[in-house]
């Protein structure tokens, strides 16, 4: 087999309309970010392996492409942007006025199972906001996500908003060993009721606490969910999370956008680094989320500056599978110029047309 004529699994080559579509999409999304005063950041495509491990915590190490440079340093191709951007905000931009608003767009690399259209090299566009208050910056980033959908003309989208503090507060209180918590998380993520029952039978918990855990997968919907959740918990952390979600929902109601937001306390998947709100955006008839994000206050501190932080990223590869009515893909419509006998004449004409702002194509 001549493997070198094929490209490796999980990579792709975009040409023609596909490539123009990609850059038009990147430009459209970037223009929304710029409209909210986010500055572009272009980080390196590789960095020290430790920088990513500090950022992402456990779970993703096996998916990182690692290599060793000639001096023996362990490096990694970036598997995500957030760690890199957080590191920059906590170091080079430590003295900048807050909030620091940054956006990025580019490829990340992860050794993923190549299925579901999942690439190993895939493109993300996203924002990170450092040093703003949770009250205002959480709302700001959610509104920006909404505007991206509107800008692209995607109508059937929905943002599911949860908080790691709701579940976190419950877990703090019941004091289970790590291994049980991991199993509990897996079962809740799969919304596997029978598996959950089996685990609960084994755990030495009061019935009242078991009832709370049983209710978690069903805590999805509108404002009513927050009221229901309040009835279940008494710990400060969970309650503060409910106050915060209610605040966000009120602002969305004020903007007539509340139908876009689904409160979802049953989703507890995601990177270890999230500390507050957590959200995912779905589009009807698309089997995977197209954007996800959340608050990660602990991350900048691991790079030396204690900054609150929130952000999200869109998956460009997935967006491209959706109809985006407002996305204009530039047409190629050049003036054709015959090369003729090969003298200077054809080139002179081409140059004149170029100076007049026209597209040209020299033809043999």
């Amino acid at each position, binding site marked *: 087999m001549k493997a070198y004529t094929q490209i490796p699994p999980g990579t792709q080559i975009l040409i023609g309309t596909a490539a123009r579509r990609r850059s038009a999409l990147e430009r459209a999304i970037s223009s929304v970010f710029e409209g909210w005063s986010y500055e572009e950041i272009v980080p390196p495509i590789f960095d020290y392996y430790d920088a990513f491990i500090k950022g992402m915590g456990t779970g993703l190490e096996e998916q990182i492409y690692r290599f060793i440079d000639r001096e023996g340093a362990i490096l990694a191709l970036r598997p995500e942007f957030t760690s890199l951007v957080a590191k920059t905000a906590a170091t080079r931009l430590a003295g900048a006025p807050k909030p620091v608003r940054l956006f990025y767009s580019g490829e990340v690399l992860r050794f993923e199972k190549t299925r579901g259209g999942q690439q190993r090299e895939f493109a993300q566009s996203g924002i990170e906001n450092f040093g703003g208050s949770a009250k205002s910056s959480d709302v700001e980033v959610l509104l920006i996500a909404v505007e991206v959908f509107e800008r692209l003309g995607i109508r059937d989208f929905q943002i599911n908003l949860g908080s790691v503090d709701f579940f976190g507060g419950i877990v703090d209180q019941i004091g289970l060993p790590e291994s049980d918590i991991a199993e509990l998380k897996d079962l809740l993520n799969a919304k596997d009721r029978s598996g959950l029952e089996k685990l609960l039978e084994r755990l030495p918990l009061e019935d009242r606490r078991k009832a709370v855990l049983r209710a978690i997968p069903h805590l999805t919907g509108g404002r009513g969910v927050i009221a229901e959740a309040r009835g279940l918990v008494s710990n400060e952390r969970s309650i503060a999370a409910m106050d915060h979600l209610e605040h966000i929902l009120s602002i969305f109601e004020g903007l007539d956008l509340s139908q876009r937001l*689904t409160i979802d306390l049953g989703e507890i998947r995601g990177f270890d680094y999230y500390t507050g709100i957590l959200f995912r955006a779905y589009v009807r008839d698309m*089997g995977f989320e197209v954007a996800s994000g959340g608050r990660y206050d602990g991350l900048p501190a691991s790079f030396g500056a204690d900054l609150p932080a929130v952000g999200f990223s869109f998956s460009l590869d997935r967006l491209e599978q959706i109809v985006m009515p407002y996305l204009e893909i530039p047409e190629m419509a050049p003036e054709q110029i015959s090369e003729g006998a090969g003298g200077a004449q054809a080139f002179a004409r081409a140059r004149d047309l170029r100076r007049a702002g026209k597209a040209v194509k020299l033809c043999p």
Partner: protein
Amino acid sequence: VIALAKGRLLEPSLDLLSRAGILFSEDVLNSRRLIFDAADGRHRAVLVKPADVATYVEYGAADAGIVGRDVLMESGADVVQPLTLGFGHCRIVIARLRGAETHAHSTVRVATKYPRITMDHFNSRGTPVEIIPLAGSIELGPLVGLSDLIVDLVESGRTLAENGLEVVEVLAQSSARFVVNRAAYQVKRAEIQGLIQALEGAGQQR
């Protein structure tokens, strides 16, 4: 769209769906067609190999599906599993020749059609293992000296017994599950919840 597994789970799956009010007018069991519309005009079934049900649902090509837990574990598919159904009960077990000794210190050869489940299990024990992937008649492995152990799905245990094998350890209980695509679970919430309730009700009627 609901993905159904061809094979032993198909008949009980259709039975459950019909009790939940989702009737498939044609004789799905005998036809060679792969897509069927329900009498209510709102649901559609696709018939696929059991291992593919997880794939269809994970990708969102089907919103939901009915599939054995063994298949889900083996595929590692990231799907929502809101309902365990009351049929298709069996166990995933490790078995060996009756009376055989397993040497814990050397590499164990294991024949199976569940390489992933097998690998996960032996990894967690720190036992070196060589996996011999087979597509069927796994029981033969130890009989012809191909492997020391097998990891296989067992319903009654008769096949094992008739081939002179014994169960060493039960790795997991399996039964049919109703699974849902993660995005569909969120975006088509009302339809999916309705379906879950109908299936749950139908399961209890029996």
